[in-house]
């Protein structure tokens, strides 16, 4: 399946999962869906038949609240049956609102509290560099998450030790929990911050699969950790969810669900 089809499925699954489970964060899943689809559509070297394969690339969703999108990507990639997605967020399920590794093959790290993924990813990348191994460690962060100081500790560390196997992706949809990033705790000049910390930075349209594919697959020729700042639209793909804080929280049911589904199917 090509990455565009995978992205469409991730969006539709996430819409259905959050609707059935009545969970939030659909806007955050829709904004990262293309990034995740490009990763699982070919950039990441993973094998659903051997989820613990030693040479696999490690992927960490640090913005754990968008867990529905990762569960959908893993199911569509064959890590577990797609039917399991129906249990998301419900009593007795393995699929919690924030991503958890317990009982879920393919999840490297359980997250949910922000600012945890990059330090752990840096540790995995440091281990790979110690052992001269070539797999990559990929961490997907949100923009609001970059308020967390622990990320900047890891950003310092990764640059100092030139962790060339480490790729950080920021889903920069410009909206955080209570409002626009620029009006909350501004990140700009964002790319310059990462650069000044010693990372190689690439800015891309986070919904352009070709651009993502190129930005996410290439390692730094200078041997630096790479940050891809993916400019995205929160709620991407459903017109009335785009660029609004509301769909960080609201659950689509009834007519709203049907309208959203129609838009995703047309895309």
């Amino acid at each position: 399946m090509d990455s565009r089809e995978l992205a469409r499925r991730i969006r539709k699954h996430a819409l259905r999962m959050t609707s059935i489970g009545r969970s939030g964060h659909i806007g955050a899943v829709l904004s990262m869906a293309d990034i995740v689809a490009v990763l699982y559509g070919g950039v990441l070297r993973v094998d659903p038949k051997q989820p613990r394969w030693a040479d696999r690339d490690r992927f960490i969703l640090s913005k754990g609240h968008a867990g529905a999108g990762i569960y959908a990507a893993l199911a569509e990639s064959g890590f577990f049956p797609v039917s399991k997605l129906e249990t998301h967020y419900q009593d007795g399920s393995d699929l919690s609102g924030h991503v958890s590794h317990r009982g879920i093959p393919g999840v490297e790290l359980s997250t949910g509290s922000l600012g945890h993924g990059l330090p752990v990813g840096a540790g995995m990348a440091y281990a790979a560099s110690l052992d001269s191994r070539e797999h990559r460690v990929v961490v997907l962060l949100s923009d609001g998450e970059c308020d967390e100081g622990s990320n900047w500790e890891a950003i310092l560390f990764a640059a100092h030790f030139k962790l060339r196997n480490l790729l950080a992706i920021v889903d920069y949809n410009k909206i955080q929990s209570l409002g626009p990033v620029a009006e909350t705790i501004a990140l700009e000049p964002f790319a310059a911050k990462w650069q000044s910390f010693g990372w190689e930075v690439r800015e891309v349209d986070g919904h352009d699969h070709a651009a993502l594919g190129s930005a996410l697959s290439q390692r730094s020729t200078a041997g630096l950790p790479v940050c891809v700042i993916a400019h995205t639209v929160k709620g991407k793909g459903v017109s009335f969810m785009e660029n609004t804080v509301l769909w960080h929280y609201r659950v689509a049911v009834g007519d709203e669900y049907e309208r959203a589904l129609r838009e995703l199917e047309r895309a």
Partner: protein
Amino acid sequence: MRTAFIEELSELAGADPRILLITGDLGFGVFEDFAHRYPRQFLNAGVAEQNMTGLATGLALEGRIVFTYSIGNFPTLRCLEQIRNDACYHDANVKVVCIGGGFSYGPLGFSHHATEDIAILRSLPGITVVSPGDEWEVRQATRALVSTPGTCYLRLDKSKAPPTHLPHDRFRIGVARRVREGTHLTIAATGGILEVALEAAEELATRHDLQTRLLSVHTAKPLDAAALAAAARETGALITLEEHTVDGGLGGAVAECLLELGVVPRAFRRIGLRAGFSSAVGGQSYLRARYGLDRKSVVETALDLLGKKQGE
């Protein structure tokens, strides 16, 4: 205790390349030899404990046995959520080491007093909490933690009890060590303050004719329920002693354990910090006396508990 720890870890690291030590930029004069001998197994992560603990988890998930090291509350409370979510939830082989249990860094002030760490750390699911009382226990515990799966906390102290082990003694995580035999009461102590317990037991014997069973409860979690229940049954009176708040530490753990077992000692007292923050300035011995954790306080508590008057 710190020297015993690093000497032991050096020996272990030579035999097991999975062992890796990360410091949060502390340990001047202590780690140079280790770093020189095992450059691939030593890492200074800078003054960044959250990242240090996250790194440790990442490395542990890749097969390393990772020791994180700093002083006081820095490797524990500063990065508590990383210990909980990253290390413990993933059963990661992360061994958190604090030098400076209790009032070890006395005159440096309250920020450097680790007086809630046992209570807080032991509440984390799956963790092992070890607080050795003397250097032999430190060496044995360091060795044992390498082969104990999952996340562990090793609380080291500047003070230490004199050696009490016998040649045939075995150290086991979760098994309290009986360092003195007695029938009138039991003192269960954890950490370097075991030295105070030994002194108090000696004074109770020589001046008051009271024989104290003394348990070194070097493992606060999992707790040695059998040894504590036996002590309560056989000696009747039980005192816990720790350089730590009385809220939820060893004393709390013992009380929870015995009450649930239905083994209620005839008399029970927790000796620990009751004064809130330890804001007085002074060395470890001074602060123990100031806050009622010294030999005199333990003897008085024991006499009171047994219904004896001073000088009786």
